[in-house]
């Protein structure tokens, strides 16, 4: 099939700085794993098809091709469309294998191309007919496919339709089928802007990609996939690194082949060969520029579009090309003499209009070696500002004599940190001065700060700092520690011994190492103490005492002559008194057993009865009182 001239990329968005780049692809080990899965011995025609055709798509060589051909011929069932499809397609992949075909076979295949067969059957029949070189009426097929799409709307069916259409004549009217690509694209699920896949799974997504590019290449029309969508599909298909079935492995292999060799979109994978670090000993930045199957794109031109220092954003490079060296693109960054630190590179891959995601951002580190120069140590008297003699120490030796500083003096240290290669002064992240008491094991660490001229100074005032040292006098070994992410040679240098004399020295307590991870002392739980209660005697006495006024009341009432002689034994009176007694009894029961709701319920009943009885009783009393005359 001859290809039409590719149309200009009208669907691709402008490659901005935030263009998506593939986060997953098939590395060489992934391809090897895929190949070994596909190379497993097969026992039926379908497995043979997946294995042989899959390996061919990965560019691998099929071993024992004669045996495979024998196998195909012996396993073939000429009455089954599927069997014919697998056998014929597999035979196309190996050389010198022809499946004999009879008129009945041809008729069976032609009969399968109708709107009554499933889409899968139509696709297999069309492919087998095409591979066998048998004539086929494209218009009929298109009619069957279009009718079938109405009935079978699922993703795999439409994918089969696309694959079938790609086997038809280029003069046929494939526009209707071509539009299905756009419909299917709309059905893809977007996961976090990174992945685009069908909910039917990996096989459906991978076969869709294969079919879309297969048909698009055949017709010569660019598929309606945006650049970001292509990369998202790449991420989805190649994120899974072990495959469950031969069919899944075959679909991934097909998609990989489609994405690396179609006429429209070829995603580019740019990775560093080794760490993205350059230094004097290793001045070149090495890049691997491949397609999704890790095949190098040797015809591409790779250049540094811009390189900016990460901190100052100043531009170091612009439009600098990489050189191709044995499949690896190299660039000598150190020749631009960059200062140590981090740089943001924007790398562009050009040379082929089909390249997708061809602009990559990369963070490159330039590391260097540091040297300590002009290390001057001195002990200065606080009273006079006359500096006492300064001792110069050279790295890595140690000062011969130790320095003594007591409360009237302070110890001073000054030095410079320079880049070994360029002589530029450096200010690394970590510049510490560590004093270590050899006897007690105590160590104190200070930070050395640079002044405006990048000269590091450190002063130890014994009187001021005695709390850090716990006022323990003695000999301390002084070390300088220099470190940074961009330094290749961190420094730990025992510069000198310093004897510190503190006043108010307490008896040196043995310094215990920080007991952070030792079990802590157990906390005894204090249970809630019961309240202090008075002795039982007192409370009993008062209980009796409180009952005493009641006795007094009874005595007084007796003395006054209160009596119940007026008690009329009428039903309402009895009922009232019984009800009233019941209410008082209810109060007691409320205290011991019931809750408010139950009490209110009973109270309503008893109270109601008592009220009615009492009302009658009191009315009777009132009538009697009125009869007596006092109304």
């Amino acid at each position: 099939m001859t290809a039409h001239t590719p149309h200009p990329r009208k669907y691709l968005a402008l490659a901005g700085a935030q263009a998506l780049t593939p986060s997953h692809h098939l590395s060489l080990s992934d391809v090897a794993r895929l190949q070994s899965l596909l190379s497993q011995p097969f026992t039926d025609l379908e497995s043979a098809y997946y294995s042989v055709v899959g390996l061919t798509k990965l560019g691998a060589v099929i071993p024992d091709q004669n045996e495979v051909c024998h196998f195909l011929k012996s396993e073939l069932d000429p009455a089954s469309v599927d069997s014919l499809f697998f056998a014929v397609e597999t035979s196309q992949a190996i050389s010198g294998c022809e499946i004999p075909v009879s008129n009945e076979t041809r008729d069976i295949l032609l009969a399968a191309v109708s709107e009554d067969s499933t889409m899968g059957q139509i696709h297999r029949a069309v492919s087998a007919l095409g591979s066998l070189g048998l004539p086929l009426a494209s218009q009929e097929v298109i009619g069957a496919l279009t009718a079938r799409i109405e009935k079978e709307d699922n993703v795999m069916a439409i994918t089969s339709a696309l694959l079938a259409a790609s086997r038809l004549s280029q003069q046929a009217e494939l526009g209707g089928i071509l539009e299905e690509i756009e419909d299917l694209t709309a059905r893809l699920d977007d996961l976090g802007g990174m992945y685009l896949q069908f909910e039917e799974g990996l096989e459906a997504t991978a076969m869709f990609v294969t079919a879309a590019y297969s048909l698009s290449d055949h017709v010569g029309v660019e598929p309606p996939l945006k650049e970001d969508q292509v990369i998202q599909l790449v991420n989805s298909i190649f994120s899974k690194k072990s495959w469950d079935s031969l069919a899944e492995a075959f679909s991934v292999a097909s998609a990989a082949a489609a994405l690396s060799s179609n006429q429209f979109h070829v995603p580019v994978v740019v990775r560093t060969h080794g760490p993205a670090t350059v230094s004097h000993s290793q001045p070149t930045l090495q890049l691997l520029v491949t397609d999704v199957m890790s095949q190098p794109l040797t015809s591409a031109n790779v250049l540094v579009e811009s390189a900016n220092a990460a901190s100052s954003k100043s531009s170091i490079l612009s439009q600098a090309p990489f050189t191709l060296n044995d499949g690896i693109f190299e660039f000598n960054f150190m020749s631009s003499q960059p200062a140590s630190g981090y740089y943001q590179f924007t790398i562009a891959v050009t040379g082929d209009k089909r390249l997708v995601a061809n602009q990559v951002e990369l963070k490159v580190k330039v590391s260097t070696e540091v040297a300590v120069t002009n290390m001057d140590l001195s002990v200065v008297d606080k009273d006079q500002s006359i500096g006492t003699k300064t001792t110069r120490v050279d790295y890595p030796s140690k000062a011969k004599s130790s320095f003594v500083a007591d409360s009237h003096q302070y110890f001073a240290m000054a030095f410079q940190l320079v880049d070994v290669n360029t002589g530029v002064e450096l200010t690394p992240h970590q510049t510490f001065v560590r004093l270590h008491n050899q006897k007690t094991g105590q160590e104190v660490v200070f930070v050395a700060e640079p002044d405006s001229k990048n000269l590091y100074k450190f002063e130890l005032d014994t009187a001021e700092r005695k709390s850090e040292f716990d006022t323990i006098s003695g000999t301390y070994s002084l070390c300088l520690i220099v470190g940074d992410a961009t330094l290749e040679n961190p420094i730990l240098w025992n510069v000198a011994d310093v004897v510190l004399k503190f006043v108010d020295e307490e008896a040196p307590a043995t310094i215990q190492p920080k007991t952070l991870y030792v079990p802590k002392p157990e906390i005894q739980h204090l249970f809630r103490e019961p309240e202090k209660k008075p002795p039982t005697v007192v409370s009993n006495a008062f209980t009796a005492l409180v009952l005493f006024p009641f006795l007094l009341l009874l005595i007084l009432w007796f003395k006054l002559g209160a009596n119940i002689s007026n008690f009329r034994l009428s039903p309402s009176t009895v009922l009232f008194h019984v009800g009233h007694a019941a209410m008082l009894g209810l109060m007691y029961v409320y205290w011991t057993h019931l809750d408010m709701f139950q009490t209110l319920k009973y109270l309503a009943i008893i109270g109601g009865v008592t009220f009615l009885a009492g009302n009658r009783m009191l009315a009777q009393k009132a009538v009697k009182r009125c009869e007596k005359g006092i109304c």
Partner: protein
Amino acid sequence: MSNSVISVISRFLEEYTSTTPTKLKVVDSYLLYILLTGALQFLYCLLVGTFPFNSFLSGFISCVGSFILAVCLRIQINPQNKGDFLSISPERAFADFLFAHTVLHLVVMNFIG
């Protein structure tokens, strides 16, 4: 000075015993009983502390509430005050007294713990 106090008190007691109707004296002795009970409760609380506070409060408020309701009853059934309580007969006063006591006892029993 003390003489006049004693004489005032004795005069008061004399008048009280002679002029007060028995009915009211019955209520007055009830009032005395309530007062003594409340005082004893308070004394106990001062001596041994307020634990448990809710019980003390409920007992004390019971005494105070009963005292107040009894005073109301006494005022309402006093024949000398009949002019002020034309619509409230003694029986009605007693019925109110009983009802208020029911509510008071409900609250006290709830709070006694």
